[in-house]
C-alpha cells in the first residue's frame, strides 16, 4: 500500500517535471491523471497486530452492509482504533460489507449527514456509532429509518424496534490494572489523566483505585481533568504535571498515547487504555484494560442477517470478552500476577464483582455496605469518588 502510494507520487512528480520542461512543446500534451484502478477500500492504518480471535472457517457473505461512524481518527491507537479493529474483525467473521467514516464531530449536521449518506447511497442495513454525543441524533434517525438498525456505544437511549445501545464493564479490567499499578508504585502516588467527569470515567477511576488499594492500602490516586477525549498535547502535559507532583505511575482515561510517552520520559510507569499500547512506551508499560468490540459487532450483524435482531441495552463484562486485560509487564510480582488471575476468574464466573462492600466515598460515608454488591443502576449513574482518590468528582 505504502509502496504503491510512493510509486504514484513519483509518477505525478515526473509528469509535473515534464510539463515544466516541455512548456510550449505541442507534442507534449499534459498527461491527464486518469484513474487506472478502481478504488480499493482502504483503511488508513495497517494493524500492528492481528485481531486476537483467530479467523475461523471461510466467512459466508450474508449480504449485510454495516457502516461505522467514529468520533476520532482510526489512527489514534486508542478508542477509535479499537472500534476499527472490531469492525475489521466483524467483517472477516461475518463476510458483511463494512464502511466507516472517521473524525465526525458530535455536534452539528455532520453526523446526521454521513449516516443518511450511508443509508441512502451505500444501502447500509446497520449503523454503529461510537460516541456518546451522537445519541440524540441517533434516536431521531432511528425514527426516520425504521428499516435500519442503529447501535450506539456508550449511550443510554434505545427504542423497541431498531435502536439499541452497547457498552462494556470496563471497570472490571480497570480493577485488575489497578492491582498491577498498586504493586509497582513506590511513591504510593498514582496519577490519573481523565477526560470528563461522567459516570463511565468515575467508575473506572474508582475501580482502579479499589484494585490498587487491594494490594497496597496506602496508595493515593490523583486525578486531573483534561476536558478532552483526544488531545495528545493536553494529555501529555497533564501527565507531566502529575509526574512533577510526585506520581510514579500514570493511568488514563484518554484516547492517545501521550501520557505514556510522558511517563516513559520521566522514568515512570504507565497503565494504558483502549488497546495494548506496549509498543509505544515499552519501558513504562505495565498493562492495559482493553476493548474487544469485534465479537459484539459480529453478533449484531449476524442477528440483522438472520432477522432476529432485537434492540437491547447490552453491558457485557469480562465473561463475554468485550473487555479484557492486556498482558502484564514482566516485573509485576508473581504473587500479584497470580492474584490478578484469581480475581479475573471470579469476575468471569460471576462469583464476585468490583463494587462489593464495604466501600466508602471520599468523605468517609459508606456507599456500599459490607457484603453487598452495587446494582447496575447506581453503577451507571455513579457520581462519587471512593476514599483514596484525590480530586474533584465534579470535574
Amino acid at each position, binding site marked *: 500500500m505504502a509502496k*504503491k*502510494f510512493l510509486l*504514484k*507520487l513519483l509518477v*505525478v512528480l515526473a509528469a509535473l517535471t515534464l510539463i515544466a520542461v516541455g512548456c510550449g512543446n505541442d507534442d507534449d500534451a499534459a498527461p491527464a*491523471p*486518469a*484513474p487506472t*484502478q*478502481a*478504488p*480499493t*477500500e*482502504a483503511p*488508513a492504518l495497517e494493524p500492528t497486530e492481528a485481531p486476537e480471535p483467530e479467523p475461523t472457517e471461510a466467512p459466508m457473505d450474508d449480504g449485510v452492509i454495516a*457502516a461505522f461512524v467514529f468520533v476520532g*481518527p482510526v489512527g489514534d491507537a486508542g478508542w477509535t482504533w479499537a472500534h476499527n479493529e472490531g469492525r475489521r474483525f466483524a467483517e472477516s467473521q461475518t463476510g458483511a460489507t463494512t*464502511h*466507516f*467514516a*472517521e*473524525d*465526525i*464531530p*458530535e*455536534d*452539528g*449536521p*455532520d453526523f*446526521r*449527514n*454521513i449516516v*443518511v*449518506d*450511508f443509508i*441512502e*447511497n*451505500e444501502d447500509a442495513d446497520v449503523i454503529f456509532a461510537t460516541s*456518546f*454525543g451522537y445519541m*440524540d441524533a441517533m434516536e431521531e434517525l432511528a425514527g426516520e429509518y425504521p428499516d435500519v438498525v442503529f447501535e450506539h456505544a456508550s449511550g*443510554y437511549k434505545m427504542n423497541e424496534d431498531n435502536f439499541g445501545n452497547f457498552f462494556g464493564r470496563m471497570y472490571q479490567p480497570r480493577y485488575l490494572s489497578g492491582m498491577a499499578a498498586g504493586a509497582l508504585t513506590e511513591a504510593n502516588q498514582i496519577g490519573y489523566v481523565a477526560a*470528563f*467527569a*461522567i*459516570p463511565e470515567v468515575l467508575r473506572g477511576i474508582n475501580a482502579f483505585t479499589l484494585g490498587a488499594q487491594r494490594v497496597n492500602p496506602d496508595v493515593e490516586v490523583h486525578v486531573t481533568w483534561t*476536558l478532552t477525549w483526544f488531545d495528545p498535547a493536553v494529555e501529555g502535559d497533564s501527565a507531566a504535571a502529575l509526574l512533577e507532583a510526585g506520581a510514579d505511575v500514570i493511568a488514563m482515561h484518554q484516547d492517545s498515547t501521550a501520557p505514556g510517552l510522558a511517563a516513559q520520559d520521566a522514568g515512570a510507569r504507565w497503565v494504558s487504555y483502549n488497546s495494548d499500547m506496549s509498543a509505544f512506551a515499552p519501558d513504562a508499560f505495565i498493562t492495559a484494560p482493553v476493548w474487544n468490540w469485534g465479537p459484539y459487532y459480529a453478533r449484531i450483524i449476524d442477528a440483522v442477517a438472520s432477522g432476529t435482531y432485537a434492540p437491547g441495552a447490552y453491558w457485557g463484562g469480562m465473561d463475554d470478552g468485550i473487555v479484557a486485560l492486556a498482558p502484564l509487564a514482566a516485573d509485576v510480582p508473581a504473587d500479584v500476577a497470580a492474584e490478578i488471575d484469581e480475581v479475573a476468574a471470579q469476575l468471569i464466573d460471576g462469583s464476585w464483582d468490583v463494587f462489593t462492600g464495604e466501600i466508602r466515598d471520599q468523605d468517609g460515608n459508606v456507599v456500599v455496605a459490607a457484603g453487598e454488591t452495587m446494582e447496575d443502576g447506581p453503577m*451507571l*449513574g*455513579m*457520581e462519587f469518588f471512593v476514599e483514596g482518590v484525590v480530586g474533584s468528582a*465534579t*470535574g
Partner: protein
Amino acid sequence: MIRPVLVRRDRVLPATQSLGFVVGILVALVLGAILLWVSDNSPAEVYERMFDSAFMGTDSLSRTLERTTPLALTGLSVAVAGSMGLWNIGAEGQMMAGAIVATGVAMMADGLSGPLLIAVMLASGVAGGMLLMLGPALARSHLGVSEIITTLMLVYVAIRVVEWLQVGPWKDPGSLGFPRIEEVPDQASLPGLFGRVNIGALIALGLLIVFSLAVSRTAWGYELRLAGSSPDTARYAGVSLRRKVLTALLLSGGIAGLAGTIQLTGTEVRLTPGLSNGFGFSGIIVAALALMRPSGVAVVAFVFGAVQVGGQSIQTLGVSSAISDILQAMILFGALVAAVFFNYRIRWTGPVGESSGEELEEPDIAVEGA
C-alpha cells in the same frame, strides 16, 4: 535581479472577482484529482459524489443550506467588523455566549408560547453575543487594545463556561449522571421550511440584505466605510471613531450570538460545548473571501457550505478523513489565492533605474497636470 512584487489593482470588477473564484476552484479541483488518484481513489467518482450530495435534489440542497445559514451569519458578523477594518476572530465564542444566554432565558421562560419564546430567545442570543463582545469593544475603542487577541481569547472562556454549566448548575438531572444540559423546550424549535432548513435561513438572508444595504447605501454605512478606510478622514468629517468602533464590534458580536441561537433552536436540541462547531472560525474565511462585503457573504457561504457537505460525504466512498480535509482545504485555498490575484497583480521589478517603484501605479484614469 528581477523579482515579483504584488501590486494592488486599482479597480476590481465584480465580474472578474467571480471569475477568479471559479478559476481558483477549478485549479484546486485539478490538483485535488491528482491527490485523489495518488491516494487510490477515483477522482470522477469522488467529485460526482461531492457534487451530488451538495447540490442534487432537495435533500442535498437542504444540507448545504443548513450549513450556509450559520456560515452566512458568522461571515456577516466578521464582515460587519471588517468593513471598518476590525477583525472579529471570536465569532465562535460569541455564538456560544448567545446560545448560553438563550438557553438561560428558555429555562426561565419555559411557559411562553412558541413564537414568543423563540423571539425572546433570539433577542437574548443577540444580547449574549454583544455581552461577550462588550469587553473587547470597549478595550478597543477606549484603550486601543487589539480586538484580534481579546475576541479570540474569549472563545475559550465561552466554551469553558458551557463545560462548567453542564457539570454544574445546569446539569440535567435526567441524564443518568452524564454532564448534559437539558434540551430546550419543544415549542422553541425554529419552524422548518423544507428538509433540514428552518426559518433561520430566512433570518440570515434578511440580515444579509439589511446589512449590505446599510453598509453601502446609508449614511451610517458610509461613516463605517470611511472610518475603516481612513480613520483621520472620518474624524475630520465629524465621525466619532469610538462610537463607530463600539457599534461595529457590538453588532458583529450580536450577529454571531444570533448565529449561535439559531443553531441552538434550529439544528441542535441542547446547549453543548461543541455547539459552535467551528462555524465561527469558518466565518472569518467566508468574510475574507467575500472581501468583507456583506453582499458577497451569501454566495461565499453557500459555496463554503457545499464544499463542506460534499467533502464530508465522500468518506462514505472510503476516502479517509485526512484526504477529505485536504481536498476541502485545497478548494478553499484555491479560491483564496484567486481572490488575491484578482485584487493584486504581479509586477516583475528590475534593478534600480529600470523600473518605476512599486508604489507607483499607472492609474487607470490617466490625469496629469491639469
